[in-house]
């Protein structure tokens, strides 16, 4: 077993983990932050995307021990004082989801995208979410949602 300490959504969390536990299971099962989803468990779909030290990452492809000492942001950490993050607002306004399964990962990928490129073109948005699959929307409303967030910030 290993000791880990990481800042998750602004709070320091210390825990004992089996090194083979993936970050996504640590977040969901040990910290009960179930907003981060597991879609494929094979590094493809992006449903498990969180931010590690300010950049998007697939938490099903990282052991929790690798994130020891890091700052993690999950979908639960985006809203401030009950105020939706501009991307959450964008997904709400533009109907950027149907079943919602891909949404937390999609939003965390988009946070990194807008951080790197605050006013992306439609093409750049589509490239920025190539690591995230959505089986419902056909992506158009997701693109609109991200555009909404980019212009409203």
């Amino acid at each position: 077993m290993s000791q880990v300490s990481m800042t998750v959504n602004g709070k320091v969390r210390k825990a004992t983990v089996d090194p083979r536990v993936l970050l996504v299971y640590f977040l969901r099962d040990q910290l009960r932050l179930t907003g981060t989803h597991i879609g494929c468990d094979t590094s493809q779909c992006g449903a498990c995307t969180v931010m590690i030290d300010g950049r998007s990452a697939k938490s099903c492809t990282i052991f929790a021990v690798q994130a020891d000492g890091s700052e993690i942001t999950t979908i639960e950490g985006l809203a401030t004082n009950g105020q939706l993050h501009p991307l959450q607002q964008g997904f709400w306004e533009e109907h950027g989801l149907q079943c919602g399964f891909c949404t937390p990962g999609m939003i965390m990928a988009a946070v990194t995208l807008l951080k790197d490129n605050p006013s992306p073109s439609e093409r750049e948005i589509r490239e920025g979410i190539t690591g995230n699959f959505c089986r419902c929307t056909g992506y158009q409303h997701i693109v609109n949602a991200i555009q909404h967030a980019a212009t409203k910030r």
Partner: protein
Amino acid sequence: MIPAAFEYSRAASLDDALAKLRATNGAGKFIAGGHSLVPLMKLRLSEPKVLIDIARIPGLSGIRKQGDRIEIGAGTVHHEVATSALLRQACPIVSEAAAGIGDPQVRNRGTLGGSLAHADPAADYPAVMLALDADISLKAPNGVRTVKASDFFRGLFTVDLAADEIIVSVQFNPVKSAAYAKLYQRASHFAIVGVAAALGVSDGVIRSARIGLTGASSHATRLAEVEQALTGKPASKQTIEAAARVAGAKLEPVNSDIHASEEYRRAMIPVFTERALTRALERAS
């Protein structure tokens, strides 16, 4: 998917990494970005007893100018290579290849050293390192050695890296007139066929040419027949078309898998060779 149990430790320096690896008596493995290793461990195709995390070794990542040459640390993540102002200006082929690896999340974690050590037959960097004639620096407990990229890639997932060695960095002379073109697998973005071309052009003549091919066979290789067909010829569309036509003709065997048949790959090698050469030549002017 739950990997087999292992112990985890973090290396504080290169020497510490090598010492920790040696202490495992062959049962340990380095982990950098984990974006090749973790998927393998989930499938239990790899079951190391000890993982030594090298991702936070100070100085292992970074892109530096060294006189006329550029050095990229083995721990540098693909995102940093893709967005490096130095590379984009002096040697855009490297950033171009890095920007096409996987997706943003993969590029935020995966490293150059991990890609070279893993040597996936469809990985992008090996072709680029061949085209740049890069030197790969390896460190062992008893010293450092340098291997040419052309000697490093030996076979399927097989490279000239001893069990007690770590990749430290790669160095190369930047080439502006170089480009990478790939036909990629739609889901993963791995290369079905990827061609890296680096040209030396002066007074309208191609003085030198190095072409690296990935995705088509067990490991990345140079396309000598294309290089010969270019060298000493006028830097023109006609030269490129004629040279690309012979690309891969002598290659044996060519991969055939669920992503593409041998026939399709053979047809695409000239197409992507021509695209890479055309863009390389554009960058020469």
